[in-house]
Structures are given as structure tokens and as C-alpha cells.
């Protein structure tokens, strides 16, 4: 069994080691190792298109994750207070948002937005006084909306599970002691759900940052990092891509480790 487990870890890490290794290739090819060099890190960082794609992915990831976390957490809290029927409707919609494949979310958003934008643009054009009316287009907005749909459902599920495991008695005890609902929330409930909110944010950001298929449909002329990488695979990958992947890996490792560290710190003090 040990051998099998070892094999699985080798299997999981061989491609990753390979990616990092080729980031240090001196040649132009991402498939033939010709010597050691760190030039591709510099090249990646000075490639305006790659940096643009990275920036776009960060904007989309952070915005959609922030919105999803705030709205998702609010919904998880609010759903405790609504009628069972309303809650069933919400639960079904959230489940749908999670279960419907990304490719379908991408298509549905594209189809709907192209239609809506078509109508809106002709309306704007007909009432616009100037010669160059503004045009609604696919872009950041549509990617954030489509990503946020899935990740908000994710956050709601996670936070709801946490709320369900919280004792109601804490909240009730607090109210009994004449704390206002707001004080109760910020001092009692919020610290309790905070870890799951943060976990939700992290998951939401990861999903959005790595998503290709939804953005592929609704990105319009914007290029996110996965779209850029996909395009590079078609035109021939240079070790720039490996370099940026290695940097993202290191950044996320730091993020995971610090998150774990913070969480452990928190559990230790409780």
C-alpha cells in the first residue's frame, strides 16, 4: 500500500516538477532542455500581454471572489430567517449553480448577454446625442458575473454548513443578555463563521483564477491567464508559460501555508 501511495504522489508531482524544471530552460522550447537559465522569469515579467492576462485574472478573481463571499455569506445568514418554501427555492437554485457544468454556464451567459446587449445597444444608439454611443460588450463584467454565480453558491454552501453546526444557544444566550442583534452578530456569530468565510473566499478565488471554459465563452476581447495559456499551447509554448506557472505555484503555496498557519493560530487560541 505504501508503494501505491508513493506511486500516486510521484504521479501527481511529475508534471509539476517538469513544469518548474522547464521554467529554467535556456532554450526557446518548453519540450527540449538545453541548459539552465533564469532568463524566462525576466521575459515573462516583461511580456506585456502575459502581465495583462495575469492582471486581468487577478482583477476578475478578486472581484468575483469578494462579491461571491459577501453576498454568499449574507445569503447563508439570511436563509436562516426565511420561510421554508423560500429556502427550498434558494437551495435548489444554489444547487443548480453548482451542478450545471461550466461549459453550459458559459454558453447560457453568452447567449443571454449577446441578446440583451444587442437590444440595449440599439436603444442606447437611438437615444444617444453624440456620434459615438457607448456600447455594452462582453468583458470583465460578464466573466465576474458568470464566475460569481458558481462561487457564490459555493460560499453559501460552506457557510451554511458552518452555521448549522453552531449552537443556536450561544446566539440566544447573547440576546438574553440584552445584546443588540448587531452586537451579537459581530461579537458572537461572525468570529465563529469567519474561518468558513475565508475558506469560501479562497476556494472562490482559486476557481475563478483557474477557470478556462466559462471565460472562453464570455471574455469578449479580454484575455485571462488561462485563456492566454490556452492560446500559447496553440501557437507553441515557450518557457515563459512555465515561469509564470512556477511563480503562481509559489505564490499559492505561500498563501496556503500562511492560511494554514493563521487557522492553526486561531484554533490554538480558542
Amino acid at each position, binding site marked *: *500500500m505504501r508503494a501505491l501511495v508513493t506511486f500516486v504522489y510521484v*504521479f501527481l508531482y511529475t*508534471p509539476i516538477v517538469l513544469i518548474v524544471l522547464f521554467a529554467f530552460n535556456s532554450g526557446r522550447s518548453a519540450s527540449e532542455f538545453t541548459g539552465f537559465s533564469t532568463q524566462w522569469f525576466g521575459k515573462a515579467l516583461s511580456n506585456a500581454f502575459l502581465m495583462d492576462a495575469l492582471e486581468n485574472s487577478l482583477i476578475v478573481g478578486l472581484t468575483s471572489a469578494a462579491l461571491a463571499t459577501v453576498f454568499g455569506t449574507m*445569503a447563508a445568514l439570511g*436563509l436562516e430567517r426565511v420561510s421554508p418554501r423560500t429556502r427550498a427555492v434558494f437551495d435548489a437554485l444554489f444547487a443548480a449553480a453548482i451542478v450545471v*457544468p461550466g*461549459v453550459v454556464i458559459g454558453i447560457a451567459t453568452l447567449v443571454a448577454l449577446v441578446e440583451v446587449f444587442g437590444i440595449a445597444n440599439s436603444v442606447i444608439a437611438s437615444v444617444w446625442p453624440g456620434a459615438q454611443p457607448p456600447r455594452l460588450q462582453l468583458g470583465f463584467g460578464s466573466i465576474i458575473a458568470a464566475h460569481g454565480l458558481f462561487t457564490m453558491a459555493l460560499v453559501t454552501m460552506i457557510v451554511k454548513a458552518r452555521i448549522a453546526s453552531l449552537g443556536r444557544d450561544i446566539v440566544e444566550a447573547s440576546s438574553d443578555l440584552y445584546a443588540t442583534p448587531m452586537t451579537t452578530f459581530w461579537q458572537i456569530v461572525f468570529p465563529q463563521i469567519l474561518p468558513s468565510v475565508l475558506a469560501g473566499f479562497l476556494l472562490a478565488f482559486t476557481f475563478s483564477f483557474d477557470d478556462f471554459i466559462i471565460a472562453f465563452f464570455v471574455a469578449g476581447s479580454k484575455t485571462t491567464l488561462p485563456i492566454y495559456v490556452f492560446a500559447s499551447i496553440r501557437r507553441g509554448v515557450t518557457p515563459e508559460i512555465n515561469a509564470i506557472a512556477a511563480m503562481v505555484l509559489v505564490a499559492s503555496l505561500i498563501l496556503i501555508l500562511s492560511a494554514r498557519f493563521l487557522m492553526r493560530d486561531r484554533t490554538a487560541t480558542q
Partner: protein
Amino acid sequence: MALQQETRKKLVTLALVGPAGLWLFVFLVLPFIAMVVFAFGKRAPEGGYQPAFTFEQFANLGSRAAAFVNTLMLAPVGALACLLIAYPVAYYLAVKASPRHRLLLVSLVVVPFWTSLLVRTYAWMYLLGARGIPHLLELLGIENVRLINTPGAVLLGIVYGYLPLMIMPIYVSLEKLDRRLLEASADLGAKPVSTFFGITVPLSLPGVMTGLALVTILLLGEYLIPQLLGGGKVFFIGNALVDLFLQSRNWPFGSAIAVTLVVVVVIVLMIAMRIAWRFAGTRQVDLV
């Protein structure tokens, strides 16, 4: 006073669930309705959508039967392959691994998730291509082996990409397992094998079902892995959909297939839950 408080409470509730509700309505319900409307439309002469009311698109679904069959075969097979590899790993992590190393080992399962799936799959394109493993085989005297662009390559990519998603839920369910149960079973003279099948397996079933359902459902919409490792030959519904929107520009037919895919996903999910209830005796299948 009481009334005022009631109104206030309602307003707060509305403010809490309002944004999420609006988001779900505008970006899930409306687009889905639009997609259904499109599915009854016609392809415009130059491609795109033209309003109409016809069942033509749904009648044409048979022409993508191969993609549906492919997906409905490879998705469960891929999920089962993941399970076969994931179970021993999860078991090892939860039961056998020393507590000191456990956290590190579990983290190592999650880390690959943090590098782009695209880049990792690209690494496999290299490994399976002629310069990768076939080249090593050539050095051993085995010539002209072809690995890339085969169903096997796609299956390997699937197992690689989704393995962590299978390991985690099984690990979580096994971790909750009360070790005293295993000890009690051993004390009562049960053989390790019968303890494993009598106690461990049934208790891990919720995790297994969660993993299977999760991986199968995600695979039903897969596009990238067959595209990159299947050479355009191993086709999933996801690939058929991308093709319809980004090549043949047949939006209504693409919408019809997308609607059908959603129906298929719901059916698969219902079957999975039914099985989970029967075997696990639990009504809880956490999808997250």
C-alpha cells in the same frame, strides 16, 4: 412596536438574501430561459441565431449521439478509475499515516490544485508525446509507441486532474471513523479483511458517493482534457458544444445540446443520490 420590529426584521432578511437572489435570477434563471428559447430557434444563414419555433434542433440530437455516449461512458469510467486509486490513498492517509506526517501528506494532495490545470495537462502532452515516455521506451528498444491522442491518454488526464477531488471526500469520511470500532471488531475476533469490508467500507460510503458524484458531474462538462490529450478525436459533449459555438456557429443547436446536457446531469445526480441512500443508509450527500 411589535409590528415595526417585524417589518424591520423582514427588511433585514430581504437585504441579506436580496443580492444573492438577484444574482441567481439575472445570471442563472434568465440565461437558462434564453438558452431554452434559443434551442427552439433556427441557425441564421451566416451562422448565429434566428428566431423561430421549431423542434428541428432537438430532432437533430441523434447526430451527436457519439459524443453523448462517449461522455456517458468515459465520465463514470474516469470516476471509477479515480476511485480505485484514491481509496487506498485516502485510507492510508486517514488510518495508516502517522499523525505527524498526516497534515503534510494531505496538503500535498491539495497543492496540485493550485497550479493551473491547463499547464499541468500541457505537461502531460509533453510526457505522452514522442519526446516523452515513448522516447524512453525507444531507448529500451520498444519503438513506435503512440500514447498521445488516444482514449487512454484522455483517461489518464482525467484521473490526474480529478484524483485530489476524489481523495479528499473519502479521506474526510474515513478520518471521522472511530478507531475504537476497528479495535472492537478486532477484539471480537474479526479478521482484518472482514473488519475492512464490514466496518470501514460502509462507513466511508458517503465520502465515496460524494467523490463519485462530484467527479462524474464535473466530467460530464469536460472540455480541456479531451481537447488537449485526445487530439480532437476523443470527443465529449463539452467539445461538441465548443465546436458548435466557435466553429460551425450553430447557436440554436448548441443551446439544444446544452439543455440536454443539463437534463443528463440532473438524471445522473438523481441516480447517484438514490444509490447513496440505498447503500449508505444516509440522506446526506454533500456535494461540497
